[in-house]
């Protein structure tokens, strides 16, 4: 049983992604219930795997019983177990919290919607635990395909965003595959661990270097590393609320994890500096991205677009950690993968909750909501503080370790930019908090050319579009309990992850990066 855990993590969502659409046609309510149950099973399996890894060390799972090099191998080490746990548990909370949104947005086909969600999760968990380069490509494309479709259903504007996401994402996948080809022809294996051993023994050849460049370009596109980020803001802004709360915390994070996995498990350190300085390139792009993402976020008026740019900045932070490449930096990057999943899920869910009640998403229209939706906005505030990185919240500690890694390597630019990013983050998030808590509700929508999209939606209070925003805000109530409970849990997680970060760092992440 215990040996079969990986099959539950990936297999359960994959299997039910086919079953749910079929059942959902006849029993519409079943789609949500089965999906949540499936994700819960995957989360429990991840937790058990983590427990087992901590007890017995890394374990391997041979797909269909075929051992490598013939068969495909899944490897569950500390890092994979913890990331898979984060992905599944965050998704579980998000799924519960966005049920009401999904009812609206999935229209009359909830089965298809939840089928895609499960497919996405199957792909993401697959990426996390696979130990095979080509298998990773397949899971990457499975997850991406589901994500394209989920973004696409967001309506008129989402269509073009979704299509562009598809084109750019597929280029990314194709580049990755091309890079894998080079590695394969150089080493003759697709198994990550074997490839690493062979690469350690062999000299760094041109072919391997070219392959590395292709792999990093491909994954860079998937994780929206500046300047390959162009697809992300549109996709996140226009995607349905039930979707962007799901893909923003986990999707790009898993791509970043795949990038990290290349460093941890495939390329020996020496390969990525020197002739083709992939690590340095990541470092520089990351530093630029941190600043660019934050500055761009400060200029946004749509809160979801602001959070999208914020994601670009935070992913760049992870890239910096990968680029530094020391165990501490990699652990800091991984800690940020975990932390940021919780923080961004909190922020996006709070946004979705606000839109659910009052249908507003422009930052300047949120004034006066603080006291009226105390739990939602309280969670948003906690998430914001964590993003800024005030101790003892989670965001502080990824920065804390990253600064240490920067000092350790004598990379003072990294130290300065990482510290500065706190201030830049404060600029755009406190701008929102200021509106929410410290300003009275606006008597009327401020003159902004795009405000017609900011009229309250559907079953929320429904004033005519020209009507003032103030009455909407003043009628606002706290969101229903099934929306705020997961939200508050996630907000609490951002604090708990911070306070007990040593447990994660010492027992999971640091051993995880040392072993590999």
């Amino acid at each position, binding site marked *: 049983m215990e040996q079969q855990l990986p099959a539950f993590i990936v297999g359960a969502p994959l299997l039910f992604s086919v079953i749910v659409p079929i059942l959902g046609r006849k029993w519409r309510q079943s789609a949500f219930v089965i999906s949540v149950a499936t994700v819960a099973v995957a989360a429990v399996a991840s937790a058990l795997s983590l427990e087992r890894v901590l007890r017995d060390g890394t374990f391997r799972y041979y797909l269909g019983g075929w051992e490598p090099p013939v068969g495909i191998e899944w490897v569950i080490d500390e890092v994979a177990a913890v990331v898979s746990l984060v992905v599944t548990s965050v998704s579980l909370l998000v799924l519960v919290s966005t049920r009401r949104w999904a009812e609206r947005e999935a229209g009359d086909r909830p089965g298809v919607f939840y089928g895609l969600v499960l497919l996405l999760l199957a792909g993401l968990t697959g990426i996390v635990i696979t130990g095979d380069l080509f298998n990773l490509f397949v899971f990457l494309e499975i997850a991406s395909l589901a994500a394209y479709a989920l973004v696409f259903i967001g309506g008129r504007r989402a269509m*073009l965003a979704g299509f562009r996401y*598809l*084109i750019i994402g597929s280029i990314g996948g194709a580049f990755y595959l091309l890079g894998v080809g080079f590695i394969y022809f150089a080493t003759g294996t697709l198994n990550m661990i074997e490839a690493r051993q062979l690469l350690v023994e062999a000299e760094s050849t041109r072919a391997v270097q070219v392959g590395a460049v292709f792999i990093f370009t491909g994954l860079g596109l998937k994780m929206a590393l500046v300047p390959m980020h162009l697809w992300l803001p549109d996709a996140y802004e226009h995607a349905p609320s039930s979707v962007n709360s799901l893909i923003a915390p986990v999707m790009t994070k898993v791509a970043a994890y795949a990038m990290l996995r290349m460093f941890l498990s495939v390329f020996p350190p020496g390969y990525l500096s020197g002739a083709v300085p992939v690590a340095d390139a990541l470092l520089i792009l990351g530093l630029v991205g941190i600043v660019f993402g934050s500055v761009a976020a400060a200029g946004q008026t749509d809160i979801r677009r602001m959070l999208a740019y914020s994601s670009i900045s935070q992913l760049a932070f992870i890239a910096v950690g990968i680029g530094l490449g020391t165990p501490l930096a990699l652990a800091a990057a991984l800690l940020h993968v975990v932390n940021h999943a919780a923080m961004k899920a909190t922020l996006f869910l709070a946004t979705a909750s606000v839109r659910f009640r009052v249908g507003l998403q422009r930052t300047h229209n949120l004034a006066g909501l603080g006291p009226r939706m105390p739990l939602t906005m309280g969670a948003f505030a906690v998430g914001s503080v964590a993003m800024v990185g005030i101790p003892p919240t989670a965001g502080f500690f990824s920065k804390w370790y990253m600064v240490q890694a920067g000092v350790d390597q004598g990379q003072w630019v990294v130290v300065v930019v990482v510290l500065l990013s706190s201030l830049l983050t404060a600029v755009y998030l406190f701008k929102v908090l200021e509106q929410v808590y410290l300003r009275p509700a606006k008597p009327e929508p401020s003159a902004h050319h795009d405000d017609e999209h900011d009229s309250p939606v559907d079953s929320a209070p429904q004033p005519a579009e020209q009507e003032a925003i103030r009455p909407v805000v003043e009628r606002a109530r706290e969101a229903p309990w099934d929306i705020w409970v997961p939200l508050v849990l996630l907000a609490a997680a951002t604090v708990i992850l911070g306070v007990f970060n040593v447990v994660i760092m010492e027992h999971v992440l640091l051993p995880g990066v040392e072993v590999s």
Partner: protein
Amino acid sequence: MIDEIAARFPYWATAALLVVGLYGMIAKRSLVKQVIGLSIFQSAIILFFISGSLLEGATLPILYSVHGGEHANPDDFVNPLPHVLMLTAIVVGVAITGVALSFLVSIYREFGTLDERDMLDEMRK
């Protein structure tokens, strides 16, 4: 120069196809042409894998003499793994193209056009 290209012909062919595909995706306004560009791009990679596993004078990886107990020489056979991988990659490619085309159907129903600039104009209205 020509010799060099001829010696590494598969690489150059792959590179050329990649560039054509990228051009189609980036420079063309028609969404259909962008999908075609994507297909060319993916095909280039498939060709790359297949040509990389090419072995002069080798044959199919089927052990004719397995019952005779004779040990087979790996050099006599073409590496089957890339071919198998590419079968999967083709399936992935088809899936992507299929999803892309279904997007195009929806977009055409919504906007009445498949031209990117017209769509943007339409959205501004």
